[in-house]
C-alpha cells in the first residue's frame, strides 16, 4: 500500500524528478509537451502533492501551530480551543501540539516539531526565552501567558491583579491569617506575579503574610497537590482562616482536604482559586475564583501573530490583560 512518490511520476513520464518538481511548482521554462506528460503521469499514478515538500518550496503552509503543555488542566484545554476557533474566524487553520516537558517545549519553540506551520502561538510551561537561548525567534511566535521578556511577543495575564483581588477580598471580609497553596517549584519559595499580588494585598492592609502558611504539594497543577499541601498544613496545627489557591486545581484539592478533616468552608476557613474553570461553579461549596480575561488574551495573541505574519519585524512586544474576581460561597463572610 505504498503511496506514489515524485520518483514514480518521473518514471512514468520519462523525465527527471527535478522536472516533475518544476511542473508542480509552476516554474517557467518547462516545454508545454513535457508539462502535459508530467500532469498526465501525476493523474495516472495518483500522486498527491506532499504538503511538507510544498512547504519547503514556498515557505508557507497556511497553518498555525497552537502549543500547550497538557490538556488535563482545563485552562489549557479551554485556551487551546479558543485559539483554534479564533484562528478559524480569521481564516487560518491550526494544528494543536502538546509540549509537556522542557525538551518538547524547546523543540516546539525552535520549530523542530512545528516546521510544518507558518507561525506558533504557545502557552508555555517553562520559559520561551530560555528555549530560544536569548535570540529573537526566527519566525512568527507569540507567547500567551507567562512572563514578558522583550524577546518574544507576549500576552501577559493579569496574574498580579487577580491574585491581589482574591487576597484583598479575603482580608476585606475579615480573614486575617491567610495560607497560600502554591505549585511545587524548584526554588522552594513562591515567586512570580501571583505571589507579588498576594503580598501587595497584605501590605495594603498593613499586614505581613506568614511564610509558615505558604505550602506546596509535590507536583504541579494537580488537585492531589492541593490535597497533600493542605493535609500537611493542617498537621502543623498552625491557625489560619483563609486559603488562597494558586489555581483552581490546587484550591479544589485543598477544599476537599479541609472538609475531610472536619474544617467547615466557609464558616471556619474561606478558600479561593484562580482561572475560573468550569469546575469552580459546581464544587461543594462553589469555589470563589479569579477569571483571567481569556477571550481578550486569545484575541490579542492572534492579532499579534497576524502582524508578524504580515512582516512586522520589531523587537518582542508585551500586552497586558486584566483579571476579575468571581465571588462564590467558598469565601462567604462568616456570620457575626
Amino acid at each position: 500500500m505504498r503511496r506514489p512518490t515524485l520518483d514514480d511520476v518521473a518514471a512514468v513520464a520519462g523525465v527527471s524528478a527535478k522536472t516533475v518538481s518544476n511542473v508542480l511548482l509552476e516554474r517557467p521554462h518547462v516545454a508545454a509537451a513535457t508539462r502535459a506528460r508530467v500532469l498526465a503521469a501525476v493523474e495516472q499514478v495518483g500522486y498527491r502533492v506532499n504538503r511538507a515538500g510544498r512547504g519547503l518550496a514556498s515557505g508557507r503552509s497556511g497553518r498555525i501551530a497552537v502549543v500547550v503543555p497538557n490538556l488535563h488542566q482545563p485552562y489549557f484545554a479551554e485556551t487551546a480551543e479558543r485559539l483554534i476557533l479564533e484562528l478559524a474566524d480569521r481564516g487560518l487553520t491550526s494544528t494543536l501540539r502538546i509540549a509537556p516537558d522542557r525538551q518538547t517545549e524547546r523543540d516546539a519553540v525552535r520549530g523542530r516539531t512545528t516546521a510544518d506551520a507558518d507561525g506558533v502561538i504557545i502557552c508555555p510551561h517553562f520559559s520561551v526565552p530560555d528555549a530560544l537561548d536569548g535570540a529573537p525567534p526566527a519566525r512568527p511566535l507569540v507567547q500567551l501567558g507567562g512572563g514578558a521578556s522583550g524577546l518574544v511577543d507576549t500576552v501577559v495575564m493579569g496574574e498580579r491583579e487577580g491574585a491581589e483581588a482574591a487576597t484583598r477580598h479575603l482580608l476585606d471580609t475579615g480573614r486575617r491569617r491567610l495560607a497560600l497553596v502554591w505549585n511545587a517549584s524548584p526554588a522552594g519559595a513562591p515567586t512570580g506575579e501571583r505571589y507579588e499580588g498576594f503580598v501587595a494585598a497584605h501590605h495594603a492592609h498593613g499586614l505581613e503574610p506568614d511564610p509558615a502558611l505558604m505550602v506546596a504539594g509535590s507536583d504541579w497543577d494537580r488537585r492531589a497537590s492541593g490535597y497533600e499541601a493542605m493535609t500537611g498544613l493542617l498537621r502543623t496545627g498552625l491557625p489560619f482562616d483563609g486559603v488562597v489557591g494558586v489555581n483552581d486545581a490546587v484550591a479544589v484539592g485543598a477544599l476537599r482536604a479541609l472538609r475531610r478533616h472536619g474544617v467547615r468552608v466557609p464558616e471556619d476557613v474561606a478558600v479561593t482559586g484562580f482561572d475560573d474553570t468550569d469546575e469552580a461553579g459546581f464544587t461543594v461549596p462553589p469555589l470563589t475564583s479569579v477569571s483571567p480575561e481569556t477571550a481578550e488574551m486569545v484575541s490579542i495573541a492572534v492579532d499579534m501573530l497576524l502582524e508578524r505574519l504580515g512582516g512586522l519585524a520589531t523587537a518582542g512586544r508585551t500586552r497586558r490583560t486584566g483579571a476579575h474576581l468571581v465571588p462564590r460561597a467558598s469565601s462567604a463572610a462568616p456570620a457575626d
Partner: protein
Amino acid sequence: MLPMRVTMRDVAARAGVSLKTVSRVVNGEPHIRPETRDAVQVAIADLGWTPNAAARSLRTGRTGVVGIVVTELRRPLLAALVETLVTEADARGLQAAVEPVHRDDDRLAEIWAQRGVTFDGLLAVDLPRLPEPSGADGVPVVRVDVTEVSGHPGCDRVAADLEQAAELLARHLAVMGRRRPVQLGAGPLVARDDMPLVDLGGTPDRAAGYRAAQRAVVGHPGVDALVCATDEVALGALAGLHAAGLAVPEDVAVTGYGALDDGWFATPSLTTVDPEPATLARRAVDVLARRLAGGEEPAVDVRVPVTLLRRESTLGPGAR
C-alpha cells in the same frame, strides 16, 4: 570552530549498524529487531541527530504526522484521551496534530481532504459520523471511542466496553438496594428498558447535570439513584441535589462515567467507571502503527474493559 554537523553516518557508527538500518528505523519500516531499533534510537538521542523531515517525507511520501480528530476539547474526558493518544504517538516517533471539529462538517471534510497530504493517518476520537472513505485506500483511519456507541463498517475501531459499564453500574446499585434508578442523559450508557431517562437537552456539561438532577427528582418521585452519562453531568448533579437540599447518597445515590480527577475530589467523592484511556490509546496507536507498516488484515473491533470505582456517592461517607 563550528561544531561538526551530526550525520546519519555518525548514528550508524555509534549504533554499530549499517546506514540502511538507520534509515529503516527512522522510516518506521517493519521487521527490525527491537534491540536493533533501540540501539539506533539511543544513538540518535545521544548524538542529538535530527533526520531532515521534509527531505525524508519527499522520499517516502510520508509526513510522519498523524491527525487526532476530536469534537471538542472542553469535555475533560475527551481532552484526557487526546492527551494520552499524543503521548502514545510520540513514543513511537509519530508527530500528532490535534484537530477539534466542533460538529462542523466542512471542517471535518477539510481534514479528510488532508489525508495523505498532511496526515499519514487519522485517529477519530468519539466522532458520531465519519466521512468516506475511512481507511480502505492506504491512509488508515482508526476510530477511538470512549462514549460513542455507533460503529462504522470497514473501519478499525478501539472502544471502551460500554455494555460492561452499564452492567457493572446496574449490579452495583442493585446490590446496594437502589430500586428506582434514573438515567441522566442517554450518553454512553446503553439505554436500559428498566431505567427511565431524563434528557440533558444539549451539551452534556455540569450545568446540564445540575438542571437535569433537579428535574429528575421532581419528575420521578421516589428516585433513589442517578446514573449519569458522564462525570461532568454527575458533578453538576451533585451540586444540583445539594442545592435542592437532598443528601447524597442517603436520599439519592449518584454515579458518573469517565473517572475524571474532579470526581475523586468532589464532596461526596464520585462513584464512577474508569474507561482506561491509557489502554484505549495504546491499543489504538498499535492498530494505526500496524496499518502504517502496511498491515492489510480485515478491520478490527477492539473492546477495552472498564473498571468500576466505588466511592462515597454510592457507598456513603468514609469510603474512598
